[in-house]
């Protein structure tokens, strides 16, 4: 006889799988969703980090920067001699307002010199379009791609820029990417605004002639040898530049664009790590529960196989193969889907992180890890269930499971059962007889609900943060900053402009704050004691009174390890560089950025300055926007303008473009997982009861009554799952929020009732659909078959 290719046991496997295909599809989906979120999140994060690394490496991104007023060119020889320095590039750079045709609002820009006869040694540009500059080419510039895209410029277009008090018309001949401006942040801006801030590169000789910097530089970038001590180099560089009005040097961690990139990547790493881990864990738990119950329904067959002489390991492998089919298909869908979605998502990110060398990275270890995790969990579930069934003597396994000791339900003992119908009592007794099973089902559905809450809650918290920041805290419409400190009377001019309703003075002082061995380069803002516009909020959302002294944000206090009453040193990074001793009078919670505030009069007197300001917060009449902007653009001493409404829009845009994209995907997967779990719970409950329900039908119960018994139990499971899920979801969000703290912002724990409602609705809808699908099975119970004893 020809040997059969597929053994009888394997054929049983295939047919059994086919019979429960609906459930299998649901389990596979749950598992694939878990793997997909895992693979796509890590793929995108790894790709971005690798893209950043490759870009910095190829572009020779500098390690240390410093700027000064005016440094004679030959000082660069001294800088090159500093121990540990590899390459030095000196430059001339200026900031100023720019004017673009057709744009009302004022914008600012930065112009940087490029060596005339060679490529820069550091911070090399990547030419995206057009051409590079010719030596000595006047008024031709390379422009940052982000700015060009924001304005739809084409090569040959011009931009007017006020450089050092003189207006120049700059012609764009090339479009470039720079590692120093992956994010382009203007003076005083907290987030990139590509429309209102542009970066330009101009011939060194042309620029130095235009700004009277012949034979001098005012900015320098260095790269270091491997193993060089960054702090020593910075200290030495500061010493060399001090006589030339040098500001304190800084390294990559304080370079604005890089700081922002690092923060964004850190955020992505947090959401992109925590979320998929939760998803994968939930998926694995659910696959485990579902497989356990699936195998448990095969108890009689396991007993029979054992009775006729199959041994435990043969039976175990039989069911493990069942799991493997699920694991293999789920993994393939998860891995392929994850990589595909990851690629798509990375393309979206590529518009945002301007890395020229961005490729999707397949993280094999991540893939293996996610598959192994799901496989292990499913296998464990199957193994335990199989063991339970196989450990019984076969004679007992083959008997239908005997009901455990009969007990009256709690309700009956309390005597309130008479309020329940006969059918309801059956339902309640079923639940009470197997409380663990009911609880596990509830936890499963609760987990599904919790990830729905989780996926939306981050958006809620973000919205809340934005509301606090921009509606309650910073209420100004416009923030102006001057090139250098000016007498307060300069504000009178602004106050008189048509459309200006209110002006509050600001005095920003760049400082290096030191406490013990800890230091942080930041700014102190001098503001009036009880401002209406630019306010400092405490955790209770009430304005903090700064007249008492010096207040700082919690983030900053943690970086410097200070508490209220501590005195810190503030090294002022301006002019004569005085050092101030400041005692911290209060620490407040701030969601965005990390501020330090002081009474403007006090800081001015500490600095021995008269009443000076460096900027102003304005409230303006929206009807006067246009003319007001025209007026402001004509003030040559203004280097920066930040519009709060625009800031908020930008912030929200960044959030939407960045992590909310991932969150949107998570929401979809969470819904899939919820449906998969609930369908399975319903389907298995049905197969466990099919025979019993058939008997009841034979006894004369209607389909409706039988369905009531089945769905009554499921309804109780779902009802219990709702508070459980909300509770678990809240915990997950609290965990994420706690881990989600970057220097850029902190997220408050805030979940809208809408989010809970959405999650509950999805769960209930999934339950109703599942009930309907299972109802069709109830409808088809074959009464004769059921009584014949066929499984």
């Amino acid at each position, binding site marked *: 006889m020809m040997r059969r290719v597929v053994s009888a046991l394997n054929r*049983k496997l295939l047919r059994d799988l086919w019979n429960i295909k609906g459930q299998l599809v649901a389990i596979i989906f749950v598992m694939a969703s878990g793997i997909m979120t895992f693979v796509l999140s890590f793929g995108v994060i790894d790709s971005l980090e690798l893209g950043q690394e490759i870009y910095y490496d190829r572009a020779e991104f500098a390690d240390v920067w410093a700027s000064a007023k005016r440094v004679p060119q030959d000082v660069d020889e001294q800088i090159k001699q500093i121990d540990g320095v590899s390459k030095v590039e000196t430059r001339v750079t200026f900031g100023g307002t720019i004017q673009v045709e057709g744009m009302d609002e004022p914008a600012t820009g930065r112009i940087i010199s490029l060596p005339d006869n060679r490529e820069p040694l550091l911070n090399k540009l990547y030419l995206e379009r057009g051409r590079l500059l010719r030596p000595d080419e006047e008024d031709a510039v390379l422009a940052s791609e982000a700015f060009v895209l924001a304005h739809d410029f084409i090569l040959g277009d011009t931009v007017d820029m006020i450089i050092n008090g003189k207006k120049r018309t700059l012609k764009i001949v090339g479009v470039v990417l720079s590692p120093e401006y992956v994010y382009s942040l203007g003076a005083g801006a907290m987030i990139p605004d590509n429309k209102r801030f542009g970066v330009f590169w101009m011939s060194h000789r042309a620029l130095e002639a235009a700004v009277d910097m012949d034979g001098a530089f005012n900015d320098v970038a260095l790269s270091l040898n491997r193993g060089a001590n960054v702090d020593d180099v910075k200290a030495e560089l500061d010493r060399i530049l001090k006589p030339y009005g040098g500001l304190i040097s800084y390294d990559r961690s304080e370079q604005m664009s890089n700081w922002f990139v690092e923060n964004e990547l850190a955020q992505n790493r947090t959401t992109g790590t925590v979320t998929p881990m939760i998803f994968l864990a939930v998926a694995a738990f659910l696959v485990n529960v579902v497989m356990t119950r699936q195998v448990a329904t095969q108890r009689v067959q396991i007993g029979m196989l054992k009775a006729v002489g199959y041994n435990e390991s043969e039976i175990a492998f039989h069911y493990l193969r069942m799991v493997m089919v699920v694991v293999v298909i789920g993994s393939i869908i998860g891995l392929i889907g994850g990589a595909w979605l990851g690629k798509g998502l990375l393309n979206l990110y590529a518009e945002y992180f301007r890395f020229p060398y961005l490729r999707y990275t397949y993280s094999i270890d991540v893939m293996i890890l996610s598959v192994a995790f799901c496989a292990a969990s499913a296998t464990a579930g199957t193994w335990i269930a199989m063991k339970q069934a196989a450990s019984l003597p076969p004679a007992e396994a083959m008997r239908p499971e005997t009901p455990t000791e009969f007990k009256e339900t709690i309700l009956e003992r309390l005597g309130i059962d008479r309020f329940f119908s006969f059918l309801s009592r059956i339902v309640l007794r079923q639940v009470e007889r197997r409380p663990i099973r009911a609880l596990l089902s509830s936890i499963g559905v609760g987990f599904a609900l919790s990830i729905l809450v989780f996926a939306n809650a981050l958006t809620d918290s973000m919205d809340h943060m934005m509301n606090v920041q921009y509606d309650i805290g910073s209420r100004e419409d416009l923030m102006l900053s001057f090139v250098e400190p000016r007498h307060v009377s300069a504000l009178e001019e602004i106050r008189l402009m048509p459309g200006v309703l209110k002006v509050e003075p600001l005095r920003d002082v760049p400082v290096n704050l030191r406490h013990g061995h800890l230091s942080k380069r930041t700014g102190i803002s001098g503001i009036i004691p009880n401002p209406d516009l630019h306010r400092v909020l405490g955790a209770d959302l009430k304005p903090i009174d700064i007249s008492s002294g010096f207040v700082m944000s919690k983030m900053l206090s943690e970086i410097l390890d200070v508490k209220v009453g501590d005195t810190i040193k503030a090294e002022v990074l301006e002019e004569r560089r005085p050092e101030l001793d400041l005692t911290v009078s209060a620490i407040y919670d701030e969601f965005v950025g990390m501020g330090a505030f002081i009474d403007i009069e006090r800081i001015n007197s500490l600095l021995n300055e008269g009443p000076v300001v460096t900027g102003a917060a304005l409230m303006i009449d929206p009807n006067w926007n246009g003319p007001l902007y025209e007026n402001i653009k004509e003030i040559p001493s203004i280097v920066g303008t930040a519009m709060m409404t625009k800031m908020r829009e930008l912030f929200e845009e960044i959030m939407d473009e960045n992590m909310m994209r991932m969150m949107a995907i998570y929401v979809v997967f969470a819904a899939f997982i919820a449906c998969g779990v609930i369908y399975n719970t319903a389907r298995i409950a049905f197969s466990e009861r099919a025979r019993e329900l058939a008997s009841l039908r034979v006894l004369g119960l209607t389909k409706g009554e039988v369905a009531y018994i089945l769905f009554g139990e499921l309804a109780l499971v779902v009802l219990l799952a709702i508070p459980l899920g909300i509770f678990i979801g809240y915990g997950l969000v609290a965990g994420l929020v706690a881990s989600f703290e970057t220097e850029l912002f902190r997220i408050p724990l805030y979940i809208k009732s809408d989010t809970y409602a959405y999650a509950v609705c999805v769960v209930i809808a999934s339950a109703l659909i599942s009930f309907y699908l299972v109802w069709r099975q109830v409808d088809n119970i074959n009464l004769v078959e059921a009584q014949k004893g*066929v499984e």
Partner: protein
Amino acid sequence: MLDQVTDENIVFKTDAITKQYGVGELTVHALRGVTMEIPKGELIVLLGPSGSGKSTFLNIIGGLDQPTSGNVHFEGAALADMTDRELTYFRRENVGFVFQSYNLVPSLTALENVELITDIAADPMSAKEALAAVNLTERLNHFPSQLSGGEQQRVAIARAIAKRPEVMLCDEPTGALDSETGILVLEALQNVNKTYGTTTIIITHNVSIADVADRVIYFADGNVSDVQINENPKPIRDIRW
């Protein structure tokens, strides 16, 4: 005693086996010390009311259940000394079971249900041969749900004999069948007993079946109450149902 245990004509020897379920007041004594020898090659019928311990006895000698006390020897080997693995092989090679509720795998056809055994047995007959032995030569590719009760039970018998077992243990094989079908099933069993010399033990409620047996063992209240030896067992066709 010892040479009786190793007697080549004895297939099963039980020594004061008891079986209790539950504890305390609720304890049920299913068997109260059954001592008995089962000779090789006979067709044996176990008779007795419900709860008299027949099924428990059958499950224990078949290695499906453990006695609370006492010993079972199969061809001289004590089942109590066997590991779970050895017990599995004991069942795989030596015992064919037929259950009242057939216990066929619903997702396998008649032929495949038999192949489930021929796949793992050491020296099986072919699945078709086993089915032919119970007069099933058609409908081999039908699923259990497409077969009548008698046909399903005959598939179950074919499944049991396919491995050429030493003993066949049948727990009310005709319990769910009408008389015509029951006769077909019993004929199949008697045929197997005569053709292959397989020791066959059948539990039944039906007293008339006792006439076809070589030996009838009566159970009452967890013990053997009587044993009758039939010198001239009747052919199945001659009994009155």
